[in-house]
């Protein structure tokens, strides 16, 4: 459909050569002269008052260069929002989960640092802990945070009105509750930080991050130094999946140790620390009540969700909203009432994760299947009757400018052979579908936009400066593709300077699936501006109007007479000799409703574009063991426009693995008295190569009017809908609508036993 030279092509990623050679440096790979080893002392208690911390023995140990406690941080607190600033960088009064930071040390080597941790004496007074969110709301003992009655951290209430009236008019109403425990990111790379203060008292810091500018601001606040003195550097990042966006206490502690010792300090998390002391996915209890008319159209819905938020707020207001938002985007509803409660417990901190709310999303679709069965409607029809359409507004008043939800459903149905299979498969085989929608961006205030800068070098190659960060999803390549396309260069002519707060302008990072839409678009605007300057000079040389020109393959040429051309390198040199700038900037700010606020005003334009996805999976359940073999997964998403199908396929496939295969079959945490029993890769079951089904990826292109080349968020709708499809397929195979996720063999066997294995559908 396009005549792009580079955009839309299957282009191998620019960062992959260094990665296959083992040359790409991740944070833990960094070795700086005189670098010290930092370690964190953590609370062994889930809820305890800190009476006293004696660091004298640790500080006296030869080789220990610094020991820091809450006394050094003066109780400074962090929170994403002003009203959620509840986490001290180092605790001074209370520990609120097993793993809470109480001290940090820097020493000449790991062994000494470890010994020093053991020599720090912390005197605690144990307090009654609470691990269950429902119990936490009724606790009469000490609150986890004194300003939050009933341990309720966040309450999001959305009500469109007419909900009760519409329930009264409904032909059929169901109310069902779905549950799922916590899960973890298990990024391949354990978290690590390297920090140093340079001779100008600038903080230089490296860490895996979802946005360098999201890290630099809180560090600037904490150290009370200007932003230009906080240099978050680019580094290879081994995955994020939503878990590395915020500042982490260890970022601050590492920098504080570097400041005190005036030496570089590296803190490397163990796998257990990465699980316990970064973020986890929320455990959720979700009740959906849905009323439909005779045709299956949803007239009213009431959803109540209780989320186990763990010890601190983190992204609480966002986390409490996003599961609902995905649902309200995916489906039309006559009216809806939502009450989301995020509740403090004495467990690790919960944040955003790739499939945020598996009980929420999979519960909703399971209930739709239940209603469809009652009304004798095919699940596909059920979704088509309620699916979001282009040009509509969501329940919270976001305009949907582009939407090809129905096309994703039709294409997935056709490719998967749904019509030949649904209701016709042998016993213990099943097929199921899920549909979902994900935001391309959140309202992010001052950091919602991105600015890029492009400079041409006299050899005709270009350097692109952008704050866009690559967590592994291919953002570096995305930026290079866009710049090369617009400038008429080849990808190898583009030098990328990115994700570095000293040299790049503010950018939202990869947070909220916005890198291409906002960061990529800023690069596109900058490149267009730069190209316009070159065209002006080239037009004079070629004696034509600038508007008649195009650029491709290192040449500027007349569109209607391509023989008439001039090399870009020559234009750059002519420009410089004629005192004309060959550099340009560009920016993009998404047109969102800046008054929209997660709790106080959850209405208005959420983001400029939404993705829509459908996943269908086919499974075989072993009725003796309860194990599930996934035969095939079909993933179809409206991505707006596929900038690089090779990269997008990889994102789709990874989404099936995390959202479906791991998220719905094997991944969950187990606990004893607030202690996570499976924090390592040995105990927590991640999908392996031998587990994965064949995956068919279908990219649907609605060409969003605002997205760069029409692109919007890619593959998160697959991760979400995969969770729903896995639930539906297993339910279909065993003849029981499953309501507790993930679908482990014990639950599946119990379901088979309870219902005698009657087929659904």
């Amino acid at each position: 459909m396009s005549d792009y030279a580079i955009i839309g092509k299957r282009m191998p990623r620019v960062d992959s050569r260094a990665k296959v050679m083992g040359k790409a440096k991740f944070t833990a790979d960094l070795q700086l002269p005189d670098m010290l080893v930092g370690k964190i002392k953590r609370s062994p208690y889930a809820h305890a008052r800190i009476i006293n911390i004696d660091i004298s023995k640790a500080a006296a140990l030869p080789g220990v260069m610094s020991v820091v406690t809450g006394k050094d941080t003066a109780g400074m607190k962090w929170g994403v929002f002003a009203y959620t600033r509840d986490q001290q960088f180092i605790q001074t009064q209370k520990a609120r989960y097993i793993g809470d930071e109480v001290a940090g040390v820097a020493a000449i080597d790991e062994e000494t640092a470890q010994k020093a941790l053991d020599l720090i004496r912390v005197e605690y007074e144990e307090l009654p802990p609470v691990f269950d969110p429902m119990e936490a709301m009724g606790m009469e003992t000490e609150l986890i945070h004194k300003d939050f009655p009933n341990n309720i951290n966040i309450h999001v209430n959305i009500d469109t009105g007419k909900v009760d009236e519409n329930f009264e008019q409904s032909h059929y109403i169901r109310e069902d509750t779905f549950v799922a425990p916590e899960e973890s990111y298990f990024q391949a790379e354990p978290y690590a930080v390297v920090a140093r203060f340079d001779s100008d008292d600038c903080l230089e810091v490296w860490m895996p991050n979802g946005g360098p500018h999201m890290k630099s601001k809180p560090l600037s606040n904490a150290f009370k130094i200007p932003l230009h003195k906080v240099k978050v550097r680019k580094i290879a990042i081994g995955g994020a999946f939503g878990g590395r966006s915020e500042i982490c206490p260890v970022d601050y502690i590492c920098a504080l140790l570097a400041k005190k010792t005036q030496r570089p300090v590296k803190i490397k998390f163990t796998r257990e620390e990465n699980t316990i002391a970064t973020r986890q996915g929320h455990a959720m209890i979700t009740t959906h009540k849905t009323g439909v008319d005779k045709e299956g159209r949803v007239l009213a819905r009431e959803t109540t969700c209780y989320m186990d938020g763990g010890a601190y707020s983190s992204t609480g207001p966002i986390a409490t909203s996003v599961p609902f938002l995905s649902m309200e985007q995916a489906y039309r509803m006559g009216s809806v009432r939502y009450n989301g409660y995020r509740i403090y417990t004495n467990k690790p901190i919960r944040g955003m994760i790739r499939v945020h709310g598996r009980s929420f999303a999979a519960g909703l679709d399971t209930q739709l299947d239940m209603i469809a069965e009652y009304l004798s409607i095919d699940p596909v029809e059920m979704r088509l009757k309620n699916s979001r359409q282009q040009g509509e507004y969501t329940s919270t008043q976001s305009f949907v400018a582009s939407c090809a939800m129905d096309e994703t459903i039709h294409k997935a149905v056709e490719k998967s052979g749904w019509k030949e299979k649904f209701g016709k498969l042998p016993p213990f085989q099943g097929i199921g579908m899920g549909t979902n929608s994900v935001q391309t961006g959140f309202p992010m205030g001052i950091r919602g936009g991105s600015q890029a800068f492009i400079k041409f070098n006299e050899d005709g190659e270009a350097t692109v400066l952008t704050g866009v960060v690559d967590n592994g999803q291919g953002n570096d390549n995305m930026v290079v593709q866009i710049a090369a396309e617009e400038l008429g260069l080849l990808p190898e002519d583009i030098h990328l300077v990115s994700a570095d707060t000293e040299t790049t302008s503010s950018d939202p990072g990869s947070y909220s699936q916005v890198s291409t839409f906002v960061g990529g678009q800023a690069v596109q605007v900058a490149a267009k501006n730069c190209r316009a300057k070159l065209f002006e000079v080239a037009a004079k040389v070629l004696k034509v109007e600038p508007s008649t020109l195009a650029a491709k393959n290192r040449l500027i040429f007349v569109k209607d007479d391509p023989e008439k051309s001039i090399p870009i390198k020559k234009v750059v040199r002519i420009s410089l000799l004629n005192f004309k700038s060959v550099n340009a900037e560009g920016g993009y700010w998404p047109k969102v409703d800046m008054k929209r606020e997660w709790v106080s005003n959850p209405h208005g334009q959420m983001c400029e574009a939404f993705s829509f996805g459908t996943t269908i999976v086919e499974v075989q359940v072993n009725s003796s063991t309860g194990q599930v073999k996934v035969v095939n997964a079909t993933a179809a998403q409206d991505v707006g426009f596929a900038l690089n199908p090779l990269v997008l396929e990889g994102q789709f496939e990874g989404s099936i693995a995390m959202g479906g295969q791991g998220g719905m079959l094997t991944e969950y945490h187990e606990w004893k008295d607030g202690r996570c029993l499976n924090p390592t890769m040995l105990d927590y079951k991640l999908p392996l190569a031998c587990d994965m089904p064949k995956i068919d990826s279908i990219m649907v292109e609605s060409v969003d009017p605002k997205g760069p080349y029409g692109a919007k968020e890619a593959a998160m709708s697959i991760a979400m809908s995969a969770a729903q499809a896995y639930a539906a397929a297993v339910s279909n195979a065993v003849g029981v609508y499953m309501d507790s996720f993930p679908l482990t063999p014990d639950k599946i066997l119990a379901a088979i036993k309870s219902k005698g294995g009657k087929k659904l559908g």
Partner: protein
Amino acid sequence: MEKIEITLTINETPYEVRVLPNDTLLEVLRDKLDLTGSKEGCDEGVCGSCTVHMDGKPVRSCLTLALEAQGTQIKTVEGLAQNGELSDLQQSFVDHGAVQCGFCTPGMLMAGDALLKDNPNPDENTIRRALSGNICRCTGYAKIVEAVAHAGKPQAHCPDCQTSKQDN
């Protein structure tokens, strides 16, 4: 514990290093020799990111003592490319989009390379089994499996092999 001086042959180069008896091969590679291509992902032999070859066999360098590696030929991810030219398997990983964050990639490459030396034409199930000691959190494995299957053997039906042939 006393440090012992040993010689390790890594990527055909001998290195003299002083190690503690309990130093793992991974610690020596990363901390003493700055060969940081081998990654520490779990430190308990599960994730496979630290996989290297010892006399041609894939081993977990986080579970291998440096002392055990004396007298053997060690190959790490840094030893796969020759004079800056990628091996067929490395090139295939690039062409097929088998690399996302890249943290598991060195281990995947070493596991895949050992498989292909043992069995130059493995079927898909064999590849999946051979890679099942290596955890990838990004890719869902599909493109990694394809990259191993097509390494050095461009497939007419594969658009990404075609790209590679044109480039060459």
